[in-house]
């Protein structure tokens, strides 16, 4: 599926791996920290989906902008969300990127283009269009990315957004992370039509389904879509096939997923697969990768420590950031 123009080189693959390793380690740490009781939070694990945003972000610049969803910490970390501000926000502290007001479902970090995280299914896409419109007006070649899930594909906002983006030829990339489940509901059961990607044709927009767990394939699709958008040729829909290895949110045992389906997915865990490929292809050595991974763990240690030792907000903070002016008591 990958055209030659968009084959990732060795350096790019290593870059992608670096991101996936960070994402995987971070997810594992979050679940550990929740289990230990150190930080309480609502958490939507992305374990298993790491390659999608890692390969995508390898095609993006800091000024490219992202609208993501509650299950989006992988998208953000891949795009460069700094760990300390992330963890402090998860811990609800004033040092968090959102001063503790947003939390895991509303993480924001504009310096890296992380503009909106929404807890409302489907609502990332309409806003990404506006970011794309602004890029057009600015005559910038930056792009906007909207990520959302397979379940979100059936909601009205997504339809309206894809049509508008097509009609206005917006530099927007719609990335549907099809992990085959929407909460407890299987993809097949709630989706008319075989693929989400096929719906793009109805808007006169290119749509492609790829194995999102394959770094090469995902990179090729993303790079092509980004190039199209930067060139002013309009939006693309990428349906990235993937899987989540945990329940919908932390605490959901995921009993609705057949055991064999889960086992097969885990057997194809994309992160060790990419790791093995790097070594097999001679792109990196075991020692190099282990040292990358160790550095990541250390960085996370530091971020967690920073977070839990930061101050809590106080009730009076509710008066600020509602409007530019403060709210009188």
């Amino acid at each position, binding site marked *: 599926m990958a055209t030659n123009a968009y084959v990732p080189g060795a350096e790019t693959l290593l870059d992608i791996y670096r991101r996936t390793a960070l994402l995987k380690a971070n997810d594992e740490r979050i679940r550990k920290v929740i289990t230990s009781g150190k930080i*309480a939070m609502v958490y939507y694990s992305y374990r298993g989906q790491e390659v999608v945003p890692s390969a995508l972000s390898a095609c993006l610049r800091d000024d490219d902008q992202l609208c993501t969803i509650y299950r989006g910490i992988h998208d953000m970390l891949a795009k460069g969300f700094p760990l300390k501000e992330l963890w402090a926000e998860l811990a609800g502290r004033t040092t968090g990127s959102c001063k503790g007001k947003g939390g895991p479902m509303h993480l924001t970090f504009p310096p890296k283009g992380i503009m909106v995280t929404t807890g409302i*299914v489907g609502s990332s896409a309409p806003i990404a269009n506006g970011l794309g419109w602004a890029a057009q007006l600015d005559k910038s070649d930056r792009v906007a990315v909207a990520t959302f899930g397979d379940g979100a594909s059936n909601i009205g906002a997504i339809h309206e957004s894809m049509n508008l983006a097509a009609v206005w030829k917006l530099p927007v990339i719609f990335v549907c992370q099809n992990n085959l489940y929407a*909460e*407890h509901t299987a993809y097949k059961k709630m989706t008319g039509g075989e693929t989400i990607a096929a719906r793009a044709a109805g808007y006169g927009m290119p749509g492609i389904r790829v194995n999102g767990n394959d770094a090469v394939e995902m990179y090729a699709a993303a790079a092509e879509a980004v190039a199209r958008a930067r060139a002013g040729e309009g939006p693309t829909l990428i349906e990235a096939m993937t899987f989540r290895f945990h329940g919908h949110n932390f605490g959901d045992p995921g009993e*609705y997923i057949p055991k064999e389906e889960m086992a097969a997915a885990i057997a194809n865990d994309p992160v060790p697969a990419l790791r093995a490929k790097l070594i097999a292809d001679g792109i990196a050595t075991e020692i190099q990768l282990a040292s990358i991974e160790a550095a990541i763990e250390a960085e996370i240690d530091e971020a967690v420590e920073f977070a839990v030792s930061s101050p809590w907000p106080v009730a009076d903070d*509710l008066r600020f950031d*509602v409007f530019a002016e403060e709210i009188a008591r």
Partner: protein
Amino acid sequence: MNAPAKPTVTILAALNKALSDACSEDEKVILLGEDLADPEGGGIVGVTRGLSSKFGDDRVRSTPIAEQAIMGAAIGASLAGYKPVAEIMLMNFTTVAMDMIVNHAAKLRFMSGGQTHVPIVIRTMTGLGYGSGGQHCDYLEAWFAHVAGIKVVAASTPEDAYGLLRSAIEDPDPVLIIENLPTYYTPMSHELPDSSHRVPLGKAAIQREGSDITVVTYARMANETRNAAAKAAEAGVSVEVIDLRTIAPWDRETVLASVRKTGRLLIVHEAVREHGVGAEIAAVVNEELFGELKMPVRRLGGAFAPVPYSKPLEDAFAPNAARILECITQCVN
């Protein structure tokens, strides 16, 4: 002497039984919503658990994530003689279905000159305390109360949850039921309500009689108010606690009679205070009992802010028993 048996029955169980009994007694009752059927776990908190297995997946259907389609399907089926109970998982998600609810469900009886009507129930849930943040914990009952043609109810006990839901299903007009996440799981009663139990729409409950001050409230705040009233009693203050149960149309007679007696009124809800339902109640009581009040009507409500994530902020957002008690104490002094 034996210790009294611990309560075991929760609001969750009462709602589940109400839906089950309604489906058993009337085959026109049908259910739909995201993840609602048993293959999808019987609802994300389990209110509908077991029902699709019992009544078939024609009558109890999981849906795509598409709240406009959910509401439309409910409205359409109701026009053809069914009594759909539609679940909008969280109250914030009603924002994508307001057209269906407000422009259609609430108005079709009127706009058709009474030729059609929309006997649907919309079950939805909200509630803070779990760190869900700004888009999952809104209290929007005032919006719906402002709309002619739809009723709004909320229960604070398993008996009321059962009785209101059964009455709502039997009501010939659309009823929005607001469930409250943190109150689902508290064992409060000893027995599940009998299948004949009903709570009439439009009737408040005097949950505690008192003479010094009336507190009008509903949903989770009724529990907090009961606790505050118990503490106040220890300090010699006699609080009358009125749980509205039906938020719209609210029970003016019961509220006015109580305030006529006590001369003092405090209204408590979790929703943002400004333009909340407390405003309407305050306006009416002031108008009806002008000159009869011992103090201005007071209101406690949520902060004028989105619901925040961080625990100390979340804790500060809404009233609780301690703050209600403090306010009661101020009022009577």
